[in-house]
C-alpha cells in the first residue's frame, strides 16, 4: 500500500521543490476588518459546536433506531442553545472540599486556548482575496511562520485546565479522571506531532496557508497515507472521544475530571471538548485533505472552483465530513481498556510514525539529490519490505508460541477437578465445570462421639501431669 502511494507522486510531481510559504498577504488588515474577521471565526466556531452537538445526538439516535432531540425548534435545531440556557440557570455548586479559586479558573483555562487555534485555519487561498466592504483580504484570520507549532501550543494549554479541574475538585473520581486524561493526551500528542513531520517535509513550511498550497496537485492523504492514518487515530485519543473516552468512563470514574462541575462551568468544559474536535478536524483537513482545495477533478471541469468564496464551501464540507466520522466512531465502537489504549499509543503509533518518517525522509532525499526512478525505488523499498515481512513473521511465530503456552495452561487448569472453595470462598461452577461429587456429612451424634474419642486419645497420649 505504502509503496503504491509513494510511486504516484514521485513520478507525477517531478518538478523541483518550490517555496510554498508566502506570508506577505497577512498582517495588513485595518483594525475594523480584524474585528469583523475575529467575530466571524468566533461565531463560526460557536455555531459549529452547537450544530455538532445536535448532529451528534441526531446521528447517534438514528444509528440506534431512535429519533433524537426534536422538540426545541424545527428538527430540534435549537436543542444545544436550549441546553446552554438551561445550564446557565442552574445552581453553580462549588463543593466544600474544592480549592475555590482554581476550581473557578480551570474551566477558563480549558476554554480560552481552545478558541485560539482557529486563528490560523485557512478558509480560502491567501492570494485569491475576497472583498469585504471594498477591502481585499484573504479568507484567513492570520498566518504565522510557525502556525502549526502555535496550534499545538495553544491546544496543549487546555490540558492544564483538565488537570487543575480534577485536582481542585477535592474528590476522588475527578482526580483519577484528570490523571488519566493527562496521561492520555500527552501520550497521543507525541504520535500526533510525529505524523505532522512528514507533511512539513513535503510542504517545506509550517505556515498553514503554505501547507494547503503545497497540496495543489496531490492531497497529502494519498502520498502520506500512513501519516494520515496515524493522525486520525491519535486525534481521537487527543480529544478524549469514543472509543478513547477513558477519562469519562462512567462505569469507573463517574464523569471523570468534570464530575464536580455543574452549571455553566460544566458547559464550558463541554464547549472546549467540541471546539477541540473542530480544531483537530480542521488540522486533518488542512494537513492531509487539501484544505480549501476543491474536490479532485472539479477544477478541470470548472475553473472558478478555487476562487472567490467557494473555497469556504469545500473547507466546510470536508470539516463536516470529519466531524461525522467522529460521531460514527462513537456510535460504532466500544470503549478500550486503559492498558490497551496506552499500548496502542506507545507501542504501535509512535514507533510506526518514526519508521514511516525515516522512510519518507530517505525517499525524499534520494529524489532530491539524485536520479531516482522506479527501479531504484524497488531496490530501496525491497529490503525495507523484506525486513518488515521478517519482523511480522517473527512476531507471529512468537505470538503463536505464547498462545500455545497459554492454551497448554488453560488445558492444565481445565483438567484439574473443579474446587468451589479454591479462591477462599465458595463460587458456582462455570459452564463446562462440574461440582465434585457430594459427600454427605456424618450424622452429628457420630461427629461428637468421634471428637470426644479423639480428645480422650490425645489426653492419654500426652499423659496426665498430676499422676
Amino acid at each position, binding site marked *: 500500500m505504502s509503496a503504491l502511494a509513494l510511486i504516484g507522486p514521485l513520478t507525477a510531481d517531478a518538478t523541483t521543490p518550490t517555496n510554498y510559504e508566502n506570508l506577505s498577504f497577512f*498582517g495588513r488588515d485595518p483594525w475594523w476588518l*480584524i*474585528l469583523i*474577521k*475575529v*467575530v466571524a*471565526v*468566533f461565531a463560526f466556531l460557536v455555531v459549529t459546536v452547537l450544530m455538532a452537538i445536535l448532529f451528534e445526538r441526531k446521528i447517534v439516535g438514528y444509528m440506534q433506531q431512535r429519533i433524537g432531540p426534536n422538540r426545541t425548534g424545527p428538527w430540534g435545531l435549537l436543542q444545544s442553545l436550549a441546553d446552554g440556557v438551561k445550564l*446557565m*440557570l442552574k*445552581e*453553580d*455548586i462549588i*463543593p*466544600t*472540599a474544592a480549592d475555590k479559586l482554581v476550581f473557578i479558573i480551570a474551566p*477558563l483555562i480549558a*476554554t*480560552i486556548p481552545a*478558541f*485560539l487555534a482557529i*486563528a490560523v485555519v485557512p478558509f480560502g487561498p491567501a492570494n485569491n482575496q475576497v472583498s469585504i466592504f471594498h477591502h481585499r483580504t484573504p479568507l484567513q*484570520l*492570520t498566518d504565522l511562520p510557525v502556525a502549526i507549532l502555535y496550534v499545538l501550543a495553544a491546544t496543549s494549554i487546555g490540558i492544564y485546565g483538565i488537570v487543575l479541574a480534577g485536582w481542585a*475538585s*477535592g*474528590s*476522588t*473520581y475527578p482526580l483519577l479522571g484528570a*490523571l488519566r486524561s*493527562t*496521561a492520555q493526551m*500527552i*501520550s497521543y*500528542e*507525541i504520535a500526533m*506531532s*510525529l505524523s505532522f*513531520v512528514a507533511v*512539513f517535509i513535503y510542504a*517545506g513550511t*509550517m505556515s498553514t496557508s503554505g501547507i494547503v498550497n503545497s497540496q495543489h496537485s496531490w492531497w497529502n492523504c494519498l502520498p502520506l497515507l500512513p501519516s494520515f492514518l496515524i493522525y486520525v487515530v491519535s486525534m481521537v485519543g487527543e480529544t478524549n472521544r469514543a472509543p478513547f473516552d477513558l477519562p469519562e468512563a462512567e462505569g469507573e470514574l*463517574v464523569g471523570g475530571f468534570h*464530575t*464536580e462541575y455543574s*452549571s*455553566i*462551568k460544566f*458547559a*464550558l468544559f463541554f464547549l472546549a471538548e467540541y471546539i477541540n474536535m473542530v480544531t483537530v478536524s480542521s488540522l486533518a483537513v488542512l494537513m492531509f485533505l487539501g484544505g480549501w482545495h476543491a474536490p479532485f477533478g472539479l477544477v478541470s471541469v470548472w475553473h472558478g472552483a478555487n476562487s472567490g468564496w467557494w473555497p469556504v464551501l469545500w473547507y466546510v464540507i470536508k470539516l463536516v465530513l470529519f466531524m461525522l466520522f467522529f460521531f460514527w466512531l462513537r456510535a460504532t465502537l466500544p470503549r478500550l481498556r*486503559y*492498558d490497551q489504549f*496506552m*499500548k496502542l499509543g506507545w507501542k504501535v503509533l*509512535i514507533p510506526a510514525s*518514526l519508521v514511516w518518517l*525515516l522512510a519518507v525522509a530517505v525517499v*525524499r*532525499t534520494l529524489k532530491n*539529490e539524485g536520479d531516482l526512478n522506479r527501479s531504484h525505488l524497488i531496490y530501496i523499498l525491497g529490503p525495507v519490505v523484506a525486513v518488515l515481512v521478517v519482523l511480522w513473521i517473527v512476531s507471529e511465530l512468537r505470538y503463536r508460541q505464547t498462545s500455545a503456552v497459554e492454551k497448554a495452561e488453560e488445558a492444565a487448569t481445565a483438567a484439574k477437578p473443579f474446587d468451589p472453595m479454591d479462591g477462599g470462598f465458595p463460587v458456582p461452577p462455570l459452564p463446562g465445570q462440574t461440582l465434585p461429587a457430594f459427600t454427605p456429612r456424618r450424622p452429628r451424634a457420630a461427629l461428637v462421639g468421634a471428637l470426644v474419642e479423639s480428645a480422650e486419645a490425645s489426653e492419654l497420649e500426652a499423659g496426665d501431669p498430676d499422676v
Partner: protein
Amino acid sequence: MNSYAPILVLGGLAAGFAIFSVVSGMLTGPKRYNRAKLEAYECGIEPTPQPVGGGRFPVKYYLTAMLFIIFDIEIVFLYPWAVRFDSLGWFGLVEMVFFILTVFVAYGYVWRRGGLEWD
C-alpha cells in the same frame, strides 16, 4: 508582528466570553444551601477522605510524563529539520537518522524494562 494582532483580539474575545459566562452563571443560578449537596460526589456513599497534599499516585503516570518529555524534545528537533529538509540534503538526513536511532535505543531499553507496560 502585525500577524499576531488578530490572535490577541481573538484571545480577548474568547476570554471575555468565558469570563462573562462564568460570572453570569454565578449570578443567575439559584443558591440553596444543603450540606450533603456540597460534599464530594461518590455515588451517595460517604466521600473518601482526601490525603493531605494530594497523596501518592501510581508511578506509571510519572514515567509517562518523563517519556513524553523525551519524545517531545525529539519532536522539537524534528520540526525545524523537516521545514528545511530540502536544503539540508544528505547531511541532514544522515544526522537525523543517527539522532532518531539514538532515541530508538532508549525507547527499546524502556520497552525491554517494562516501562511501557500498564500493569
